[in-house]
């Protein structure tokens, strides 16, 4: 009897193993990749030029867009704004009759299928598979943030499905051997802080502030930024010295002791790189401690300004340096709405949703814009044609967050955010003064105000 069981188990294993071998052999070779961007084409002209020829496949009834979001859990605060921003774009497109899809030469309505992964990576992986294998989506968009995006990367690659990655900035996702991904709305973490380290090594050092403290949350997003900054500041010839460098768990919510430790190192500049909750806790603790540093930089005041202002207050933010995103710096878009128009639309649709308007909302909307432009210039819905279309937008597509630009691995290297300093405005408000790079600056930094 036992022998029969063993034989049965071996047979089962063979069936599964044979499927694996077959799946490996049946992979087609990747197609040559190239560009196709024709600018912002007149839609009627595009339709005429690309009308389907006899014998070509009929247009589908709709374009199915698969997406994941997290309505609960630790990533809900960054995921929900992206989801709602994307949803807003889909609703606007459908209200106008759909989006132009070049292979079919006409507008098609969009259907957004977005599942809730509840911030659980395992669930996100299963739902990514569900979108691809069961819902038969045409375009796949990952959830927000690196942790939830990570699980979708190999699945999309395995199914040869191009992954539109809104904000998963982990550098490990982008490699030469994976053509099935592009980062759309956040610069990759290794590149994002470029203006910051340039600012530190030029203007800040020239002002005599050369001792830098780096305090970062140990997650892929901020850890990679910290590593990039560290490498740049330690490069030969750098006028800057790192006097404090420590990673803390992302769950850290009390920075009082850490601020004392930093102060003991007597830095001129403190860089605190964390998620929203980290930045709020750090800025509150800094204010309560009464400790002063000539320059303090944190990430999120410029990314989720409303949330930071609500929780850290005007006094907590005044004097702080941060990235200046499209929330406070106007980029004239060639495609889609301006910031003001988008904010108005958001307020009309989601004022009562409880989700704050911020950078991630814009990121969701920009993801939609890239999708729309991709459909307008792709030769077919085959995924490598979709990739070719996305890459053809690189360096040419200008949205409300700046110029969309990809490197050859699909990492976003455009849309860099300048560095700004926060000043109080009115009774409770704040405004940003852009201080770097010089080409974008509209004011000078004032050190020693924090």
């Amino acid at each position, binding site marked *: 009897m036992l022998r029969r069981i063993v034989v049965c188990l071996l047979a*089962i294993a063979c069936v599964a193993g044979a*499927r694996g071998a077959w799946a490996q052999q049946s992979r087609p070779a990747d197609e040559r990749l190239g560009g196709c961007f024709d600018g912002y084409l007149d839609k009627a002209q595009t339709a005429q030029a690309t009308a389907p020829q006899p014998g070509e496949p009929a247009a589908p009834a709709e374009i199915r867009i698969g997406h994941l979001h997290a309505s609960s859990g630790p990533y809900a605060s960054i995921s929900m704004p992206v989801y709602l921003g994307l949803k807003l774009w889909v609703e606007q497109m459908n209200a106008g009759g759909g989006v132009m899809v070049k292979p079919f030469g006409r507008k098609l309505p969009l259907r957004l299928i977005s599942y809730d992964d509840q911030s659980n990576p395992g669930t996100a992986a*299963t739902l990514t598979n569900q979108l691809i294998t069961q819902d038969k989506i045409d375009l796949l968009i990952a959830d927000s943030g690196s942790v939830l995006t990570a699980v979708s990367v190999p699945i999309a690659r395995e199914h040869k499905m191009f992954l539109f990655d809104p904000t998963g900035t*982990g550098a490990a996702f982008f490699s030469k051997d994976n053509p099935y991904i592009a980062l759309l709305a956040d610069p990759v973490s290794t590149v994002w802080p470029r203006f910051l380290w340039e600012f530190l090594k030029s203007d800040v050092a020239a002002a005599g502030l050369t001792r830098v403290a780096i305090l970062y949350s140990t997650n*892929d997003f901020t850890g990679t930024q910290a590593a990039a900054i560290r490498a740049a500041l330690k490069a030969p010839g750098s006028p800057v010295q790192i006097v404090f460098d420590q990673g803390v768990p992302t769950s850290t919510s009390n920075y009082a002791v850490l601020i004392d430790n930093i102060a003991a190192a007597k830095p001129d500049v403190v860089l605190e790189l964390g998620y929203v909750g980290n930045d709020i806790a750090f800025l509150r603790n800094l204010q309560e401690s009464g400790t002063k540093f000539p320059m303090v930089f944190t990430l999120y005041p410029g990314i989720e300004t409303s949330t930071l202002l609500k929780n850290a207050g005007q006094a907590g933010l005044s004097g702080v340096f941060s990235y200046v995103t499209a929330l406070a710096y106007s980029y004239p878009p060639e495609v889609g709405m301006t910031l003001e128009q988008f904010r108005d639309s958001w307020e009309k649709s989601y004022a009562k949703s409880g989700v704050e308007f911020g950078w991630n909302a814009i990121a969701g909307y920009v993801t939609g814009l890239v999708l729309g432009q991709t459909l307008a210039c792709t030769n077919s819905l085959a995924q490598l044609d979709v990739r070719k279309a996305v890459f053809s937008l690189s360096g040419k597509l200008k949205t409300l967050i700046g110029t969309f630009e990809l490197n050859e691995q699909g990492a976003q290297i455009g849309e860099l955010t300048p560095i700004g300093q926060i000043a109080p405005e009115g009774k409770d408000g704040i405004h940003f003064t852009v201080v770097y790079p010089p080409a974008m600056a509209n004011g000078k930094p004032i050190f020693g105000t924090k």
Partner: protein
Amino acid sequence: MRRGVREFVTVALPLLAALALAPLVYSNELLLFNFIMFLILAQGLNAIYGFTGYLPFGYVGFFGAGAYGFALAVMHLDATPLPAMACAGVAALALGVVLTPLLRLSGAYFAIANLAAAQAVYQVISNPALQDITKGPYGVTLSSVFAPALSYGVALIILAATLILVAWLRNARFGLALQAIREDPVSAAMAGVAVVRGRTIAWLLSALIAGLAGGVFAWHISVFYPETAFDLSFSIFAIVFTLFGGAATQLGPILGVLLLYGLYNVIGITVPQYFQLIYGVLIVLLVLFLPDGLASLVTRRGFRVP
């Protein structure tokens, strides 16, 4: 023992055959893989909780240790997947040995201490100071060994081995000794049962199963972060599935996984906004009306559940 073989053939073999053939008719292979993974975890938990009464809230610690055992073998030893799977098992076993003194505790104390131990392992793995070894909090990428279909087959084999183990425990002298320990360790010891040795073996077997599950999970998913591998929901799900179906049986955890994880996915896809409400109500009802799981509906009437 003949009854154990019969139970395996009637309960486990059809399940294994169905799971082997399922990808041919249902293409969301990852969902099927997750079913297998939770079946393994639920049976692994069954081996320690069902037979000895020790409920490890931090069971995910072994799972994460296995996942990182696999990842470290691939990253640093350039191991191929099968030797790396062995490393996954060894990593979990080693952790099991280190945590063996926890067996001196019992009840809620053991559960909480075990949970704390799992969190400690997670913090060590995700420590940025160990970035060169574990990649710290920045996650690992194992794309060089990514082979979902093959890892699916290996997961199936692990499940088969786990089911054989549980069938054996259900019917062998050793399993009966464990159940005697669960009911009353003092009486069992007086009757000549080696209490410490029995518990320790069950504990290590349970750790090994979770470690192998973690290893095959790492292989199948290939890109993950420490918070993915040490996600507490693995422990919670494994416990709930086992309790729902009925511990100390082979069929109970299987029913728990098939029904509850199936429901989890149906709810998650159709009405995710009600997920926590529906799942919460179900668990409350379970605790109130079926504390010994679905299997007790049958055993109450004097029937034996495989």
